[in-house]
């Protein structure tokens, strides 16, 4: 009997692992206006899950495969097609979702808890899931540290990045792959429909208090952790669904940060320290 035999502890550790990494990634999603890109990976994850269930392997791996497929397809189509990016994203998002549902209908005997997929099932996190989440999180964290300067520069301007000898195209591809990993980990926690909330709400909340990109990323991670703890607490005491409760907690934090705006109204002009 170890600590991790308790499902609540497992849920907590898994949730914290995902939130810590979703915060910094979410900052880039906000800075680069990629919310819809996140939605697309998340929606098309249903196809990956279906495949995983049909061939009976860990469904996070399934999500990872479908997410990487979306990232790679976007990377190549975006350069050759002259359709607006968000049109392509919508195409992939709902195409993936629809194909997933149709494929699922070919296997009438297969039971799949659609609600758990859409809104998360954090209380059912297994020890394997836990290991996968923390290893994936570690990989993403290390990559973010390594790529930080490149990512930040190409967020400001791809041209400036190129002139400085960087490769923004490769940086963007790497970022997409990191997104795929984060989303694969987050499906179990908050579900397909709520993943983007876990990415962007902590970042949006953190912006108010951040005087540098690094601080904003760290704050967003911590805010995400508070959201996870709040959501699980609410689920425990009031028997609310855990995933949506986390998002509600994050929304409350965001609303509070907006109210605080009055007293912090001068931060914009007075960021005199440097990082």
């Amino acid at each position, binding site marked *: 009997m170890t600590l991790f035999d308790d499902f609540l502890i497992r849920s907590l550790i898994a949730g914290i692992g995902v939130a810590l990494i979703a915060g910094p990634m979410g900052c880039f999603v906000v800075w680069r206006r990629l919310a819809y890109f996140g939605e697309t990976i998340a929606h098309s994850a249903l196809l990956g899950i279906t495949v995983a269930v049909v061939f009976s392997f860990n469904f996070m791996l399934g999500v990872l495969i479908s997410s990487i497929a979306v990232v790679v397809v976007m990377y190549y189509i975006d350069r050759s097609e002259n359709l607006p990016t968000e049109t392509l994203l919508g195409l992939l998002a709902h195409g993936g979702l629809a194909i997933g549902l149709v494929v699922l209908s070919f296997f009438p005997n297969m039971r799949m808890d659609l609600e758990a997929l859409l809104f998360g099932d954090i209380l059912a996190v297994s020890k394997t899931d836990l290991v996968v989440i923390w290893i994936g999180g570690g990989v993403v964290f290390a990559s973010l540290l390594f790529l930080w300067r490149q990512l930040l520069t190409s967020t400001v301007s791809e041209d*400036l990045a190129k*002139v400085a000898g960087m490769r923004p195209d490769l940086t963007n591809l790497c970022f997409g792959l990191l997104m795929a990993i984060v989303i694969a980990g987050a499906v179990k926690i908050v579900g397909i429909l709520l993943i983007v909330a876990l990415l962007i709400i902590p970042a949006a909340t953190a912006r108010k208090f951040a*005087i540098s990109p690094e601080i904003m990323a760290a704050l967003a991670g911590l805010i995400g952790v508070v959201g996870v703890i709040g959501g699980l607490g609410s689920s425990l005491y009031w028997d609310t669904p855990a995933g949506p409760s986390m998002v509600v907690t994050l929304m409350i934090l965001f609303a509070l940060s907006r109210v605080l705006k009055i007293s912090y109204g001068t931060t*914009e002009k007075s960021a005199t320290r440097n990082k």
Partner: protein
Amino acid sequence: MGIYRSNRWLVRHVDVKVLRGQLVYIIGANGAGKTTTAKALLGLIPTDEGEIRRGPALKVGYVPQRLHINPTLPLTMRRLLRLTERYKNTEIDHAITAVGLQRLGNPFVSTLSGGEFQRLLLAQAMLSRPDLLLLDEPAQGVDAAGADKLHNIIDRIRIELGCGVLCISHDLQLAMDTGDDFLVLIPHEHDEMDST
């Protein structure tokens, strides 16, 4: 040099040369291909004709024409200067002073005015001590007094670094008055005679 896209030449027969310490202008109306030319010279887009010769280990500083920084990105002035490399504090101070922004403190870049932001970008470009500064309409959206000030700053930087400056502009008068050389780009529909 020429660039051919979507069945037409965006720019063609561009021949420009910048020596160390020179100020050279590229002048042209909107749509004449000034920015395209600049990006090709920087190697940001490939050329379809001709060649670009660079001095050995040529370092280029670039100030893009339009750069919008998402205000959700909490970048302060000093942090922006440190974006691509870890410069020393003294270097940062020097660059900020060189473009006359030293009295602002360290505000978020999203709160800077258009002219201040252009000068900050200029500081960013000079920090790597480039051999060539490429400025894409640095005075765009800046009033006449601000433009004057900006061009004075550019001149001082050119003398201090001993670098060449290639400046894109639509001010022919300015180019004739202050430039060592200038090149005028004309939007061309009449190039068939030498399309062989």
